[in-house]
């Protein structure tokens, strides 16, 4: 018995593991809440684009010796707003605008980095994440930003829901649709940046999309979907860190793959909607 207890307890005797767990749980929970809107609006592509775009800001901040996260956050939010601005003109489709702008910002980052001689360490950790290097300062910054994001989602839940569901009716009702759409993009931008340290640019989209998509298979209404998504994110963080600790693999990959595993389970076994369920009980045709 005590062996199992030791096995479970052992990783958390290290302070860097406790910090990593706290940061990963907070980020994955808030990412699932914001990510619910992302997947419902078919915005997964932008969830992939913003962290890449933030790399441009990270690189600029690196050269200037400024805070890398602040640089990344500014670049993500500016790119999000530019995507909204370009696509709202109606001349270019939304996903085309995303494709152009995020690759542009990412290329800017690559170009700036290529001029530097000694960039490997810090910048590499942005690409793949370095959760074991988070400081208490990082944990508190993450927690504070996550709290702000959650408060904004709760306060404007009604408006975000309406605009996400039916933008033309929302506009006809007098809601400031453009401001709310930009605001949601900015929230996605900030969420991805706080996820950078945990899982890095390449994998952060998984935190936005995978837990929320898993929850969508298990729930019917939006608030439970957000809650279940947050739970899936938190459990993936916990299990991923155990795997990283004992198997000595990259924590970011372990967290994301655990979430992918949860999604696969839900996809197969979700009541009524899972693949196996549908094989066994063919549902009545909907009118």
């Amino acid at each position, binding site marked *: 018995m005590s062996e199992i207890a030791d096995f479970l307890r052992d990783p958390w005797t290290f302070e860097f593991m406790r910090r990593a767990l706290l940061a990963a749980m907070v980020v994955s929970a808030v990412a699932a809440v914001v990510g619910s809107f992302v997947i*419902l609006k078919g915005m997964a592509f932008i969830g992939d684009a913003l962290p890449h775009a933030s790399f441009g800001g990270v690189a600029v901040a690196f050269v200037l010796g400024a805070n890398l996260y602040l640089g990344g956050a500014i670049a993500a939010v500016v790119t999000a707003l530019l995507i909204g601005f370009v696509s709202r003109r*109606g*001349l270019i489709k939304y996903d085309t605008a995303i494709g152009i702008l995020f690759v542009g910002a990412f290329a800017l980052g690559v170009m700036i980095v290529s001029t530097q001689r000694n960039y490997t360490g810090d910048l590499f950790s942005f690409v793949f994440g370095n959760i074991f290097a988070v400081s208490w300062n990082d944990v508190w910054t993450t927690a504070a930003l996550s709290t702000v994001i959650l408060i904004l989602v709760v*306060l*404007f839940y*009604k*408006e975000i*829901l*309406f605009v*996400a*569901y*039916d933008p*033309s*009716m*929302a*506009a*006809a*009702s*007098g*809601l*400031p649709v453009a401001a709310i759409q930009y605001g949601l993009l900015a929230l996605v931008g900030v969420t991805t940046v706080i996820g950078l340290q945990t899982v890095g640019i390449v994998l952060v989209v998984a935190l936005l999309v995978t837990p929320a998509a898993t929850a*969508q298979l298990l*729930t*019917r*209404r*939006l608030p439970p*979907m957000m809650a279940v998504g947050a739970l899936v994110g938190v459990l993936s963080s916990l299990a991923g860190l155990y795997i990283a600790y004992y198997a000595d693999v990259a924590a970011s990959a372990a967290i994301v793959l655990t979430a992918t595993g949860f999604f696969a389970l839900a996809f197969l076994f979700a009541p009524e909607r899972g693949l196996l369920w549908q094989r066994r009980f063919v549902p009545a045709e*909907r*009118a």
Partner: protein
Amino acid sequence: MAGNGTGTEPYVVEVRDLRAGYGSHSALEDVSFTIEPGCLAGLVGPNGSGKSTLLKVMLGLHRPWRGEVLTYGRYGRPERGRVGYMPQSELVDWAFPVTVAQVVLMGRYGRIGLVRQPGRRDRETAMAALERVRLADRAGRMIGELSGGEQRRALIARVLAQEADLLLLDEPLAGLDATAQHDLLRLFEELRREGKTLFVATHDLSCVAADFDHVVLLNRRVIAFGRPADVFTEENLSAAFQRHLFVLPQGTTIIGP
């Protein structure tokens, strides 16, 4: 055109010399007409004739190239809460995880204001609207679980919950069976008796001919405007619908896709 009013009663809507479009594509040209208070008015035209664009311009959602819209004597965007809108049901995301009651409650959001939560009166208004379209028993269901006709009625309930004076409805009759159409037309009649003004975009000439007070026949331009009996002449209809219209020998008119 303005000559048939009494002169004392202002128009609910006055559209003057409207031109609008997207990019370089022109969707509306020199559109002028008026809507009288308490009137059930139709907006009839083939697909791509600019019906939806016209409604969007009237709502202040789409900026016209030139011309103007006066709603209750006010230029540009109508006063908040006075004009209700029902979008085409193809534009609504039916897979979205919201209940029927939530969708109808959204009709109240414009009045509630930012951040504030819907109160008891908002919920009561939404429920009353659902009862009016006989969907009260479906309030807790997910919107995607309803049949096509029920979804349409849920959108109607949402526009009722807005408690607006002028209702702009985009294709509310499309795809409904005869009974559902009949119910909806009876509801329009009730609303008109309550003093509401309705402007309804539709393909359905026979409904308009039988039940509507006025009709705007549109194909990028206003082909004709007035009482359905005066507007629906063979000449006007073939000008509006061109080769989409087939006049059968029995006098039945069929509109092609």
